[in-house]
């Protein structure tokens, strides 16, 4: 085989591999992703579907339950109705009232039930505890 042709074949093989990977990537990313919603949108969300909820923990609402915690969240800008949340699993250190959190879970009977160990609390870079507790 002449080298010119060999190179062409190689190029085609490499490109098709890249295209295949890209298609798989795009396809799986749309099917594997979880929709992100804010608490006010979740109040009316369909039960049985997983969502990634981003909200702000209502100060003073955090309670310890056997096997986990319960608290309420509002939209990140502090507006909207409060959504009750239950969660089991690791609670990150920065978690507390007033913090922004990301949690994956489903709505069951008006309560957002978080999947174990999916709670992410955002790291504050500034020490703003006073403002939040107010």
């Amino acid at each position, binding site marked *: 085989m002449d080298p010119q042709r060999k190179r062409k074949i190689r190029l085609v093989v490499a490109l098709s591999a890249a295209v295949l990977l890209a298609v798989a990537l795009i396809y799986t*990313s749309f099917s594997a992703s979880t*929709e*992100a919603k804010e608490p006010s949108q979740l109040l009316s969300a369909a039960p049985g579907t997983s969502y990634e909820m981003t909200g702000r923990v209502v100060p003073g609402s955090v309670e310890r339950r056997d096997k986990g915690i319960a608290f309420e969240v509002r939209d990140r800008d502090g507006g909207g109705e409060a959504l009750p949340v239950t969660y089991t*699993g690791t609670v990150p*250190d920065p978690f507390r009232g007033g913090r*922004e959190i990301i949690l994956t879970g489903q709505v069951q009977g008006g309560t957002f039930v978080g999947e174990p160990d999916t709670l992410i609390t955002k*790291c504050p870079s*500034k*020490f703003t505890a006073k403002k939040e507790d107010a």
Partner: protein
Amino acid sequence: MPSLGGALLGLAFLTSVSAAVLALAGRRGERRWVDRSRYAVYALCALLTACVAIVEIAFVSDDFGFSLVAEHSSIQTPTFYKLTAMWSSQEGSLLLWAWVLSLAATAALYATRNRLREIVPWATAVLMGVAAFFTGLMVFGPGVDPFAASNPVPANGVGLNPLLQHPSMMVHPPMLYSGYVAFTVPFAFAIGALVTRRVDAEWIRATRRFALIAWALLGIGLLLGARWSYTELGWGGYWAWDPVENAALMPWLLGTAFLHSIMVQEKRGMLKVWNAALIVGTFSMALLGTFLVRSGVLQSIHAFGDSTVGPYILGLIGVVLIGSTALIVSRLDDLRSPRRIDSLASREAVFLVNNLLLVGMTAVIFWGTFFPLISELFTGTRASLAAPWFDRYTTPLAIGLVLFTGIGPLLAWRRVSWATAKRVFALPLAAAGLTLVALLAFTEAADSLWALALFVFAAFALAGIGQEFWTGARARRRLAGGSTLGSLAAIVGRNRRRYGGYVVHIGVVLLLIGIAASSSFQTNRDLELAPGESGVVDGREVTYVRPTVETSEEYLQFGAVLRVTPEGGEPFLLEPSKRYFRPTGSGATTISSFFDGESTSEVGLRPGAGSDFWTAVAPDLTDVKRGVADAERGFRECIRGAPGAPAECDALASMMRAAAANPSLRPVAAAQISRLQSLAATRIARGYLDDELSATFRVIVDPLVTWIWIGALIAAGGALIALWPTRGRRRGVPVRTEADALKEVKYREIRDAELDHAAGKLSDQDFAALDAELRREALDVLDRVEAGNGSGASGAEDGGKPDPVEQG
């Protein structure tokens, strides 16, 4: 003082602009303009150093007239954290960026002051353009002036977030930033090379070290962040595919690809377009990292508040990408290489494959990281991808990388004959086979096929590297005599770049083994135990011996003593705890604020070569909280002087009444109240010891996780070997000119080929062909040295001047 800093910063902006203008005035290589622009860069470095010094002095001396200091430090902040509090803020980070850039630019321009006369002016202009962007951002940007004055000046600052008060957290951001910034140097020189069409390997030789330093710093920064997450967050993981983590990983991956593919350009003159594109991509990713950390466009654990500079950085990325792409396209004819890859069984072909894997991995991570924005664009709703999605793609790519990490060093440049391949692959293949059999026979590694594949390929790679060291040392001994150990030291010393690279490979392979084992074979249990109770995790008995309480100036700490008894092993004690930081800063507090503030987990960790035993505790503070509520009620009654309050309250109540009447007494009264609240909180905290409540423990048995950190240290050591100045330079042997440097490079290549031949990696026939080719090239270079009297490259005014040059 803030105004002095502001003035210096303004001056720094003007200096960087004028340095860029001077450099462009000298674009035809006029010495006086180029020299002046370089002096302006030095001046910029001095100015920004002064700015950083002013900020640091303000932090150490608690000068709350700086709003930066007032918002990120306090009198109580430990001095070490005062020194490092600068980069916990956006404006401080920008100042750090600009300062490190000025240092890197100074170092790069000093090293090339007598070389690359055509490229340097353009590189200077690019470096200073970036510097002008960042200094200008601080001067003109909204709310990012590090020298903003606070008004009124507070008596105390709000302090530094205790979560960030961790040694590795203080080193982690500057490492990442320095890594990002150092990639500016090779980028700037690449642009210079493209503009002037001097696209040989000269710019690479001049900036290779900067790329390597950038790569190493970025890697260390990533690892420190992972380590912090592992020991401080009470979560037990070290990587979460968080957008900001990804943002630092992407330039590191592209940088890794770049470090490999530039070797192909240096040795074979190929992949020029690819290299130019890679460094543009790496630099853009570095900027993107800075942008993501500071913009808040993606939901991340690193939420640094709403940034105001995001759009500007995005604009810069746009300019960099569009400008560089246009430049590369317009120079395609110059970048075309006459050579082709001779054979797929050659080192350059493997480097190309490794590059594709690394770029593929970056593409996957990029897509996943920005998927929320992509999905919003196409479907209207934001949706994000979790760790399993990332794992699905990066795992096979990482395994492929390990395999090619193993194959690459075994092959010689250009081509390898079948007979040679059989010889060099025998031992690594045997090692891989043995590992496979041993793993199947003695472990449960087969439960995870990916992990099994990674272990086997890792054995292949490690055996291959071991063989490289061994045959290299043996060949050297045959050529030069001496002991085996001495020969080993000699080959490493004479080929620091190659063997340093191999050491990096060992480290990275160990690190990947650690990641594969700890992510595939981790045991993770939550135990709820009362004092005296036990549970069993992975064959080890865990007993909650007793609760602990520690009180200090900074925090109240609730912990537990755990006794862990491995099957048939010696029991050991672990003390995980949770710290609640006391409220800092001025203002009214309550007793409960001592238990609601920032908290951190101090994990109880027993590291081991086989596995880590990791524990964290979540104490049950129900009784403590009840005590707090009681105390707060009592305190209020006491202050009010309610009937039935103890006699001691009278003094306090009268003090409060006096303070109400006389404002000047208020601070004293407030201080007295805080003191009493602190005493009360401490006393209540001690009560936890008698509560006998059960606590929740998270217990993780993490196999081989220690090898992540060990591997990282080894890799850092390898990078250091590769960076170490070569002997000729260290001993002060003058390498006079660029052509001399080229000559030196050719000689080195010939020596390399001889070594490869002696080590059995090149067949006699291949060696003869290669040697003849290299000698012919060397003769060419020699001719140029003679003809140009050493100037070799550009029409220099003073070609004969001594000219220290870095060697390959």
